[in-house]
């Protein structure tokens, strides 16, 4: 069997596994967010928080909950890193500098997991396990909570109530993320990922002498890192490190984990709005983009254009033998389309066009299938835009899922889709115009520009992967990338929740012969087209300067 065929079969196996879990997990999550029963352990937690989980919140209250919880998270994680020098279990590592601690705190709370530090040389047990890994769980739970609030906006009528943030946060963590992560972590260890607290110690070598190991709670963090579409590695090499991703099978499992929840949430959405077909239409949109991009990536990586790869006879730079070109390509597309940003191979050493695909994947706005929760609300906003465009074409007031898309709704949606591109392009322009940021580049020319464009794209879209040639541990990059992550996460949430509130207040419009059937393939086609055109128009000039220039030259 050739490597191309093996790659395609891996993709098919992945699709089969995801398809098997789609209905049960999607239905289960719908039950989690609609049930009125509380588990006993949840009651204890609510008591600890001092919140009543049965109070309904309107959108401003829901948003305040999100912001207060996230602000507390950033503050706590910042202090934890600043105090690392005096904490127990720090393996002798010192306090992290203020700008890097800010960057890292924001990065993990915003579900980005951009890393400007070397995990194995900077972070001890306490920061990794009680700080970073915790945000892997709760930032994902916050994303799902906001998505569920938007879905309730569609599902409910004549009320402004969107549910209770604390209940959504706790249930997402306790009922969905923790059990799935625990199972995944145990399987990962069975395959070879490490899970211990041995810290830094010496181990003998074949040729004599010894090597230094840094042992930690790796598998438990790895599982939620993928499942919560976080992506921040325990080690610098992330999921390319054999202790994080030991075998070809663990590689496939990790890709499965990072796609699992974002895809199944479309089922949850369908169930909650009372039409699973609407969920299938969104799923079909995500699936079309995902498979299309994966096919393109496999094609360009196997074709290995680029002088160094031509001489080498394959694009294996930055890739592991056990995963090969196929497994690495599937991972790269899945991780950039889901806002995960974990890597099992290094994107900077992909072919010019391959690197461009990873960038374009993020520029779509992390929607195919996107991050846990953020993917669903992102694509629903684009669905509203698509419905609006269709409405303009036929001259009808647009409506989606029985709700009118009036001027207030379309304004909120339009602002939402402008935020991230504005952040990416403005910050990139400044970094290129100023004299010092360019010193951080490893490569020159078009690829050097790509390193910086990639960094801001990754940050503002809350992905977190990198063209890691860029030395991002400078005050400029720590600060501006931190701001891009912060605004790229929370500003869109403001507009999503405002939109949810406005939708929930409406009374439903009855379906008539003139209603656009949003569960049909025609709408899926329209939505895919709208997504690609909006992204294309926004980013084409920037992409032309970077990956396109590099790809066409080789």
């Amino acid at each position, binding site marked *: *069997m050739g490597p191309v065929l*093996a790659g395609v*079969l891996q993709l098919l*196996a992945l699709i089969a596994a995801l398809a098997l879990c789609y209905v049960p997990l999607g239905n289960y999550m719908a039950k989690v967010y609609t049930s009125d029963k509380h588990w006993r352990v949840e009651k204890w*937690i609510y008591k600890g*928080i001092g919140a009543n989980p049965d109070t309904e919140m309107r959108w401003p209250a829901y948003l305040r*909950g999100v912001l*207060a919880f996230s602000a*507390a*998270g950033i503050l*706590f994680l910042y202090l934890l890193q600043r105090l690392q020098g005096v904490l127990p279990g720090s393996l002798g590592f010192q306090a992290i500098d203020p700008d890097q601690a800010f960057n890292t705190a924001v990065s993990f709370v915003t579900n980005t997991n951009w890393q400007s530090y*070397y995990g*194995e*040389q900077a972070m001890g047990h306490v920061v990794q396990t*009680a700080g970073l*890994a915790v945000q892997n*769980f709760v930032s994902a739970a916050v994303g799902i909570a906001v998505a569920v609030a938007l879905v309730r906006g569609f599902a409910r009528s004549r009320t402004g109530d969107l549910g209770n943030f*604390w209940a959504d946060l*706790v249930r997402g*963590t*306790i009922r969905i993320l*923790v059990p799935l992560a*625990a199972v995944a972590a145990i399987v990962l*260890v069975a*395959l070879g990922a*490490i*899970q*211990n607290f*041995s810290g*830094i110690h010496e*181990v*003998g*070598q*074949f040729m004599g002498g010894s090597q230094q190991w*840094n042992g930690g709670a790796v598998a*438990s963090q790895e599982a939620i890192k993928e499942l919560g579409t976080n992506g921040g590695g325990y080690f610098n*090499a992330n999921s390319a490190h*054999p202790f994080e991703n*030991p*075998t*070809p*099978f663990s590689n496939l499992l990790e890709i499965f984990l990072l796609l699992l929840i974002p895809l199944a949430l479309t089922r949850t959405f369908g169930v909650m709005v009372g039409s699973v077909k609407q969920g299938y239409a969104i799923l079909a949109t995500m699936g079309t983009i995902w498979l299309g991009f994966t096919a393109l990536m496999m094609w360009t990586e196997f074709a290995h254009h680029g002088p*160094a790869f031509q*001489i080498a006879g394959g694009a*294996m730079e*930055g*890739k*592991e*033998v056990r*995963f090969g070109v196929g497994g690495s390509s599937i991972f790269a597309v899945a991780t950039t389309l889901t806002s995960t940003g974990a890597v*099992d*191979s*290094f994107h900077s*050493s992909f072919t010019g066009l391959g690197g461009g695909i990873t960038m374009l994947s993020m520029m779509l706005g992390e929607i195919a299938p996107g991050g846990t929760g953020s993917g669903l609300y992102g694509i629903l906003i684009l669905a509203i835009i698509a419905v609006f465009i269709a409405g303009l074409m036929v001259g009808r007031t647009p409506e989606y899922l029985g709700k009118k898309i009036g001027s207030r709704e379309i304004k909120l949606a339009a602002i939402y889709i402008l935020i991230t591109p504005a952040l990416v392009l403005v910050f990139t322009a400044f970094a290129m115009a100023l004299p010092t940021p360019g010193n951080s580049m*490893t*490569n020159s020319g078009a*690829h050097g520009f790509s390193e910086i464009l990639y960094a801001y794209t990754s940050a503002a879209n809350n992905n977190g992967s990198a063209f890691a*040639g860029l*030395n991002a541990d400078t005050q400029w990059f720590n600060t501006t990338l931190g701001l891009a992550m912060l605004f790229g996460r929370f500003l869109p949430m403001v507009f999503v929740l405002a939109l949810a509130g406005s939708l929930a207040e409406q009374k439903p419009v009855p379906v008539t012969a003139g209603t656009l059937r949003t569960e049909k393939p025609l709408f899926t086609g329209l939505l895919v087209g709208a997504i690609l055109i909006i992204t294309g128009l926004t980013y084409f000039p920037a992409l032309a300067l970077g990956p396109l220039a*590099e790809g066409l030259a080789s």
Partner: protein
Amino acid sequence: MNNSVSTTARLLGAGLRALLVLTLVTGVIYPLVVTGITQGLFNNKANGSEIKADGKVVGSSLIGQAYNLPLKKGQETPDPDLKWFQGRPQNGLGSNSVNTQYKLILSGATNRSGDNADLIKWVKDAKAAVVKDNSVAGYTVKPSDVPADAVTSSGSGLDPDISPQYADIQVHRVADKNGLSVAQVEKLVKDHTTSRTLGFIGEPRVNVLELNIALKGLVTKG
């Protein structure tokens, strides 16, 4: 005003309490339970898949190592010890993301692009070295025989594996240096080649440390 300040403070307090409770669940209980279970069930794997030779721990089967001669005076990088099978190139790892040289404590890749002048040079040099080192009396390696993994560095800088093709072109050299027959070494490589999981997952590969341990056994016995 006072009212809104106290509301904000109350809200932040709730956020902080929520964080602390969830930290207890996901940052203390969860990792400890997972550690307990996996240390019990998969002890060796949870601790890094240590591998022994002659009763001594010689590394992890998951982590690549260097097989070099001792550093000579005035040398910056040691020469490979050609008695042993060699892993993927250790050189060429740039200063930016560190020259790991199979040092486990800092993993990472070169992050060089396909049109990067350094990478083009490293690949060319590596290819020339692989051809030269492995061509022995009666066996010449052609540049087209050299697979991509032999001349590029991995993502982690710790890749434990090489492709079976790269192992194959090292067989004659290893046999020659150790006074073994080509057939013996060929069999060794064949025995240590792992095929794709279930026939289609990943790529066929040879674990260099395990192969060298077996080779050492063969040399000592022979």
